[in-house]
């Protein structure tokens, strides 16, 4: 006879706890859906930008660059139709997707009344901000 069979009350308590945890997880549905949308569309748009960059490079016969340009130079190069600029934009776009997801998570935690995790997520965002600031000051 297993311990669970010997103590049906314990099994019931566990089932109730799992149900409560499932309800808590379900309350985060808006966060799951928003983050999922950011990832899905972020990847599609990033892949499209990358494909355009490669196409422009092939059409113009330009080789792929050996070093990504400064972030501040990228917009002007994209507007000039420069393949290297478009590819740098695709790389930066992909880098931006997780950052936007963190912002979305912070906002949704706050909206759902979970102040503790909204603030923790904000701390993650600040840490990423340090990394981004380093790249901007290159």
């Amino acid at each position, binding site marked *: 006879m297993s311990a669970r069979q010997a103590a049906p009350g314990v099994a019931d*308590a*566990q089932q109730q*706890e*799992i*149900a409560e*945890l*499932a309800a*808590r*997880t379900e309350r*985060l549905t808006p*966060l*799951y859906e928003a*983050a*999922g949308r950011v*990832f*899905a569309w*972020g*990847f599609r748009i*990033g892949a499209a930008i*990358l494909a355009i960059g*490669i196409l422009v490079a092939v059409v113009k016969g330009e*080789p*792929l*660059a*050996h*070093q*990504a340009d400064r*972030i501040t130079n990228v917009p002007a190069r994209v507007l000039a139709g420069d393949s*290297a600029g478009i*590819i*740098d934009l695709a*790389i930066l776009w*992909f*880098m931006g*997707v*997780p*950052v936007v*997801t*963190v912002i979305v*998570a912070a906002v949704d*935690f706050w909206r759902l009344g*979970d102040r*503790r*995790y909204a603030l*923790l*997520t904000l*701390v*993650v965002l600040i*840490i*990423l901000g*340090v*990394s*981004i600031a*380093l*790249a901007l*000051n*290159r």
Partner: protein
Amino acid sequence: MDLAFSLEIGIVAATAAILGSMLGLGGGVFLVPILTLFFGVDPKLAVGASAVAVVTNSIVGTTNHLRSRFTNPRLAMLLQIAAATGAIVGALYGVVADPRVIYGVFGAVLVYAAISMIVRPDRSAMPPSLDVPDRLELGAAFRDPAIGREVGYIPIRTGWGIGVGAGSGIISGMLGVGGGVVMVPTMNVLMGVPLKAAVGTSSFMIGITSVATVFVYYAGGKIDPSLVVPAVIGVFAGGQIGSRLTRRIRAQRLALLFSLILLYLGGSLLLRAFGITLPGQS
């Protein structure tokens, strides 16, 4: 760098991602050693390219985990503070480090991964933790399609998890790997998180950790688009093929063969750290 070289890098990246995906280690674990040992690529540029590929792979992989509720966003954010901080520290060091240090650390990580693959316990048998205090409200539940019911858990030993997260972040920042090789077993075995939730949460974290890494490498001028573009495309394609192959082939049966490949790559990097290059390598 010409089209033929880009194609070669793309094929190597795809192969690395197939191997990594079948072992659940991610593509970077194979990509960086192959690029440095056989193509003579500067290890810092290889790390930068790998980190970008890891981010894009995480974006694709996490979408499914979010849909299945395998990802635990609260746990991810708590551990992420340490992991992202560690990644910045690791990357800042990695950008300026002597390449021999990177070879040595990477070699040690690969040898560890190979040995843990051979001797690892049956993680799926680890029972989820319940009936414990949940002061940080980290408990969650998801529906496991394999058993057709809800699985609930409350992570334990969060202090240890945060500590290991910081270490995983440092390794990720230095070596351009996702860190899942450390975080998944930590969450599963140490913190009592069911394997699917550990993988889903780790996948979410890996993208954010690697972004922290990439921006530092970007700042250091170590992002080479001629490597990044074929690496991203190859790792994406290889990841898709690898996940399909994993369903058809019992990857565990190949674990010994793959672990021998890891041992060879790890041993080669350790030797390279001491200035020794094996025949056939560049």
